[in-house]
């Protein structure tokens, strides 16, 4: 929480004034019983009707001033908490934008979204409540006790006895039940998980006729949840009766003690009445405080989680180079090792190869063989653990990441488009691209028919591109990578949803482009990489073959095996 306080600093005036006005209002509330006491002791006792009227008007006036105080307080508190969280969210979003791929992998998308939404909202509500009530409730409780002392020392001792007792009951039950509620939540989550797993596996469960077993399992977990809930329910059911009992017992004691004092002439009837009123005020505030503490502790947990994300040091590269040195090679890898954070084994082991400008490099291998990892090293999305990755003769880590990424047209595995028009999406690489340039890229990406069908560059794409089919999305993402003529193009398994004919046409169009790009094609299909100038076959992170199709067919057994499983030449392979 401390780490977040600097975002509260610009709102320090609001955060001080809010509670302050709240306390002013509470002070007025503490005076009310005294006014009532004077009405009884002076107005009634002396039969002074004018005095009674004056005091009643005073009560109304105090209500009005209290209203002014609390409205002002609400405003400051709301402004402070909304402003505070607005700042946090903006900082959080910026921080998330600065993270490297490894950081993103480690933190996870759903965590990032939760921090931005639910956690932020909880902090906002928590701060608002805290500013309004955290000082007010204890102030009223102790204020009431102190006022009691100003009336009569002996009677006020009841307060000294009852406040700790009430606190023990209220906070004791709270402390006792909080971990139990956590367990209830845990059991609820488990039940939810069982239900979800069951629904996800509905076909398999029915195929194996396991419905009854599933029902039995659900019933059992449901019963477990019910049992735990009942247990905690029994304890929290004690809260209201016990506090009611304590406060009323205290009132009865107070009245008897007051009666004795009045009989001795030390106290008046009105003063006993005031003591009774103060005692009544305490209970309400203590219960408010207990609920407040629960909300605030939840908000604090959210705040800590947000602070943890804000504290993450981005591991993205931050070099200064803005251009290469005019090397003969577009991309070079020298003895590169790569490893994902926390993974026991390297994702890439000792990879070395070079690609000249204008060459096409095919990368083939099964899932998990390290193909994507390899191409992701080129724009420095991930850092090599050892060895060097050079683009145009400069180590990628020495580049300003923006300059480096501007050189590269990236077409990632997951074909994602963003809400907006087709034009907006295709301008991501080059915001100044003309419609002609965009249409040229669309043509090469074999996406002209997509535009025809959807209504041209102004066609609206819905969030995630869900109004397009997988193949349509893929072709548009390829077009997006081509806009602005990148010097290096990376197609990371980008044609998987295309049929073989479109895939082939796409590769032909790219090969025919003027001012040849250096192209990296990642694929599982031998047909997609067969014609590359260089094919790299990866298996379990190691390059088991580098060469042309003909060379690999000749000397690499795994390549042959893959080729034949995909293109079974009549009778050449028989098991």
């Amino acid at each position, binding site marked *: 929480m401390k780490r977040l306080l600097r975002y509260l600093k610009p709102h320090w005036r609001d955060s001080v004034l809010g509670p302050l006005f709240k306390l002013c209002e509470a002070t007025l509330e503490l005076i*009310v019983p005294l*006014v*009532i006491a004077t*009405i009884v002791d002076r107005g009634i006792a002396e039969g002074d009707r004018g005095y009674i009227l004056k*005091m*009643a008007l005073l009560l109304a006036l105090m*209500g009005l001033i*209290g209203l002014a105080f*609390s409205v002002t307080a609400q405003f400051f*508190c*709301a402004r402070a908490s*909304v*402003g505070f969280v607005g700042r946090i*969210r*903006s900082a959080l*979003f910026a921080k998330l934008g600065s993270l490297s*791929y490894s950081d993103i992998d480690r933190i996870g998308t759903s965590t990032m979204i939760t921090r931005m939404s639910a956690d932020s909202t909880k902090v*906002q509500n928590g701060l608002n409540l805290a500013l309004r009530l955290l000082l007010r409730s204890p102030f009223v409780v102790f204020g009431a006790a102190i006022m009691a002392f100003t009336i009569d020392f002996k009677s006020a001792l009841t307060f000294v006895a009852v406040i700790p007792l009430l606190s023990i009951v209220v906070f004791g039950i709270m402390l006792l039940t909080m971990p139990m509620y956590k367990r209830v939540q845990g059991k609820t989550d488990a039940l939810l998980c069982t*239900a979800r*797993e069951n*629904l996800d596996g*509905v*076909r398999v469960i*029915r*195929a*194996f*006729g396991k*419905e009854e077993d599933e*029902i039995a399992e659900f*019933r059992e977990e*449901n019963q477990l949840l*019910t049992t735990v809930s*009942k247990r905690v329910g029994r304890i929290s*059911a004690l809260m*209201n*009766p016990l506090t*009611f*009992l304590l406060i009323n017992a205290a009132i*009865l004691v107070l009245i*008897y003690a007051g*009666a004795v004092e009045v*009989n001795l002439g030390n106290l008046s009837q009105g003063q006993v009445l005031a003591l*009774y*009123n103060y005692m*009544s005020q305490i209970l309400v505030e203590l219960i408010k405080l207990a609920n407040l503490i629960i909300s605030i502790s939840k908000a604090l947990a959210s705040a800590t989680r947000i602070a943890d994300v804000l504290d993450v040091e981005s591991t993205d590269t931050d070099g200064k180079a803005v251009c290469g040195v005019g090397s003969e090679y577009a991309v070079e890898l020298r003895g590169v090792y790569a490893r994902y954070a926390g993974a026991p084994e390297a994702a890439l082991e000792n990879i070395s190869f070079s690609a000249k400008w204008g060459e096409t490099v095919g990368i083939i*291998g*099964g*899932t998990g063989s390290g193909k994507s990892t390899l191409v992701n090293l080129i724009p420095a*999305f991930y850092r090599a653990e050892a060895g060097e990755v050079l683009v145009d003769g400069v180590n990628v880590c020495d580049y300003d990441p923006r300059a480096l990424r*501007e050189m590269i047209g*990236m077409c990632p595995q*997951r074909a994602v488009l963003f809400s907006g028009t087709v034009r907006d999406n295709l301008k991501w690489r080059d915001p100044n691209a003309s419609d002609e340039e965009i249409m040229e890229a669309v043509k090469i990406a074999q996406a002209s028919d997509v535009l025809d069908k959807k209504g041209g560059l102004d066609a609206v794409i819905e969030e995630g591109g869900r109004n397009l089919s*997988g193949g349509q999305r893929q072709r548009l993402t390829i077009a997006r990578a081509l806009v602005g003529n990148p010097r290096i193009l990376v197609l990371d398994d980008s044609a*998987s949803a295309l*049929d073989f004919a479109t895939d*082939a046409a796409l590769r032909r169009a790219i090969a025919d482009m003027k001012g040849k790009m250096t192209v990296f094609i990642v694929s599982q299909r031998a*047909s997609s990489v067969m014609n590359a100038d260089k094919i790299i076959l990866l*298996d379990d992170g190691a390059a088991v073959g580098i060469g042309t199709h003909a060379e690999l067919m000749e000397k690499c057994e*795994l390549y042959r095996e893959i080729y034949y*499983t995909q293109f079974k030449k009549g009778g050449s392979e028989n098991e």
Partner: protein
Amino acid sequence: MSKKNGRGGARVLRRALKYIGKYRLLLPVSAIFTVITVALSLYIPVLVGDAIDLITGAGEVKLDAILEILIFAAILVGGAALSQWICSTLNNRIALGVVRDIRNDAFERLERLPLSYHDSHRTGDTVNRIINDAEQLADGLLLGFTQLLSGILTIVITLGIMIYLNWAVALVVFVLTPISLLVAKFIASRTFNMFKLRAEAEAKTTSHVNEMLSNQKIVKAFSHEDESQAKFDELNGSLQARSLKAIFFSSLTNPLTRFVNSLVYAAVALVGALLVLTDNGAGAALLTVGELAALLSYANQYTKPFNEISGVVTEFQNALASAGRILEIIDEPCEIPDGADAVVLGVAEGDVSLSDVSFSYTPEIPLIEGISLEVTRGKRVAIVGPTGCGKTTLINLLMRFYDVTGGGISVDGTDIRDITRHSLRKNYGMVLQDTWLSPASVRDNIKMGKPDATDEEVIAAARAAHAHSFIKRLKNGYDTRIGEGGEELSQGQKQLICITRVMLCLPPMLILDEATSSIDTRTEIRIQKAFSEMMRGRTSFVVAHRLSTVMDSDLILVMRDGNIVETGTHEELLARGGFYFELFNSQFAK
């Protein structure tokens, strides 16, 4: 329209109340204790007032009489506390019981619903209904009722006591208090629009955040961070402005109602104090100081039950909506049960025939029309075609996850609608591409189809499926837990376990879905081997992505847009020069 909704609401309510019906003996007991609690705790201020009246002046106080009153009050306090405790314990028991029962019923129903229900409803939504809506229902309906009861009782009894003490003061309270409710209502209606505006801004911000954060890697690949941040800050700014407005104006409710309360309080103090000074014509005052004290404490609390009741109404509406959602599941018609004369299919020979089968998910859009097909025992059928062409539909029909809408499918000459579902499905071994394993140990997953298998059988099956070597290398071997909180397996490893699962019981017919892309090369070769071993001598339907599989098949079904467009062997189809020819040749296109 609204009338119809109202009736729907009443129907939902009646159905929901049936769940409480099981606890009908506890319910009146709880109600009785609610009455006792309210009555006792409201009577206490009267007794306190009586005691205060006896505290007159120095030397005049009747301590004995006061003690007597206070002891009586203490007994009432104890009684009220006890009955309050009993009441909430009972309510807790009923509410939790109702949640449990309704959840069990809903879940049981899910297991009996036709697959079309599951295919057309999102998992997250269904789960939400079972878990959260069930809870909302119990909280809202049951706790709502008790709160409503105690709220109304409090209002009535308080008013009664006040009238008994002094009708004039009661009138003041009775007339002025509703103002605070009006104020609250006024603010709520005024802020409704502000909250709507805020919700809109929030939705926009959230969707931008979701979209950008879910695809953060692409944002970075295109160095689009600044544009994205600028848009966020703009959205966030407008959200903040609207939030401030909505939060501030809605937070005026409390100060304003408190203000109205303090006016009421002042009025009661004024009128009450003046009445104390007024002679009733018989030498006594119209009101005593003690009675004034009691009236003041009632005036202070009189708005509380009103606020609670208006809270209950919203809760109640939410609960009704939740009840509607969860009852929708429970009231959904079950799968047509197996007929009384349905036969239990033993181990089938594996002759499958489709005669003039038609099928559609929705009547308006015909999908499969007039397919006839004879597959004799031991034959291998490959199903090919572009994604989304209806390959899974065919599997759905064979396994009877869906019933045909025309024609019929038979196994060994018996129409599958005359066979019990369990026994039909037991005759199929199914390995789908989306590999589902239950969150349990590897061993339990493998034994799913044959719970009494010995360890030796399990290992033998794993060896046959080429899965043994990786399973034994797992942290706890066959006892390794998978799924939530357990070991993370690769897609290929999961598929191998699914194959082992089928290998263990080896039914006479197989439905296999070849993986497209998510498996590493070596595992892929293993799976291919395991598949061909399994298929030997069994009627098999393979959704094929590999030409090698296709070419070895006895029959190829070429599907497109939900229909079988061509059937035949590889050679026949090539010779025909149709869609299959096109598909096949595009493999080699340059």
